[in-house]
């Protein structure tokens, strides 16, 4: 493997870390791509080749993981949690959550209590995989990005 590929991996990892830190903010692909010093198209292509999923899907799963954490650990309302983790509409949040987790946020809360494990472990290990079939695309980078998200 060339130094060039190693450097690209490292830059893509920095961009992924930026999504993990700033998932609650209104991120767009261009801003995250800038962290990796890549154009939007090159970033999306390279991210998928390196990590096995698009940045759009990665961010969705991070936001849903954080919402699952808050549903388990707090008594905040579902709508508050929706906005806490960076979704901008209850409809998009509920649809995305159900696509990925396989049940509604309210049902998930009913069946899951607090988890006694370090937060870093939960962020690392509890990011949900898509529950059933292929999830439909919905916007995590904002509605404008939905049409172009790969």
């Amino acid at each position: 493997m060339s130094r060039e590929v190693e450097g690209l991996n490292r830059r893509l990892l920095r961009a992924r870390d930026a999504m993990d830190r700033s998932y609650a903010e209104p991120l767009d692909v261009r801003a995250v791509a800038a962290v990796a010093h890549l154009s939007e198209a090159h970033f999306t292509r390279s991210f998928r080749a390196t990590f096995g999923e698009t940045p759009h899907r990665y961010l969705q799963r991070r936001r849903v993981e954080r919402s699952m954490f808050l549903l388990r650990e707090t008594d905040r309302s579902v709508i508050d949690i929706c906005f806490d983790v960076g979704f901008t509409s209850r409809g998009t949040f509920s649809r995305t959550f159900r696509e990925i987790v396989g049940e509604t946020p309210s049902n998930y809360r009913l069946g899951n209590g607090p988890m006694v494990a370090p937060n870093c472990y939960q962020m690392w290990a509890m990011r949900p995989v898509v529950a059933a079939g292929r999830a439909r695309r919905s916007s995590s980078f904002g509605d404008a990005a939905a049409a172009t998200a790969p």
Partner: protein
Amino acid sequence: MITKLNVASIMVLNKDEALDFYVNKLGLEKGQDVKQGSYRWLTVRVPGDVTEISLAEPGPPVHDEATAVQLRDLITKGALGGLVFKADDVRGMYETLKSRGVNDFTQEPTDHFYGTDMGVRDPFGNAIRILQQGKVAHKARA
């Protein structure tokens, strides 16, 4: 009965660069530095601790070239295991690291029910967590 962890290991891409980061940035101390031919046994440790952390590079004679390529790929993708340290003042350490030019943080100091922790990556992509253990008044936040 096992009585102590003696040596742990972390894969790095360059031992000199790793030594600079782990000693001059993170504040560990240099342990063993033994050279035999082309091989270098290099360790760092928490000051005052006995557990050595071996800084290991992928490559011969331990790994064939194809395996080394895979390992380098995994290291730079952040896919290998990292290290978790304890500290007495995580927020102070965060400021110290920033003043030393470290900016690859994965998490700023954050309070949890078990204490305060932060995350940073070494120059190669390995994840490092630093925990200040203890009960901290906190409210769960995402």
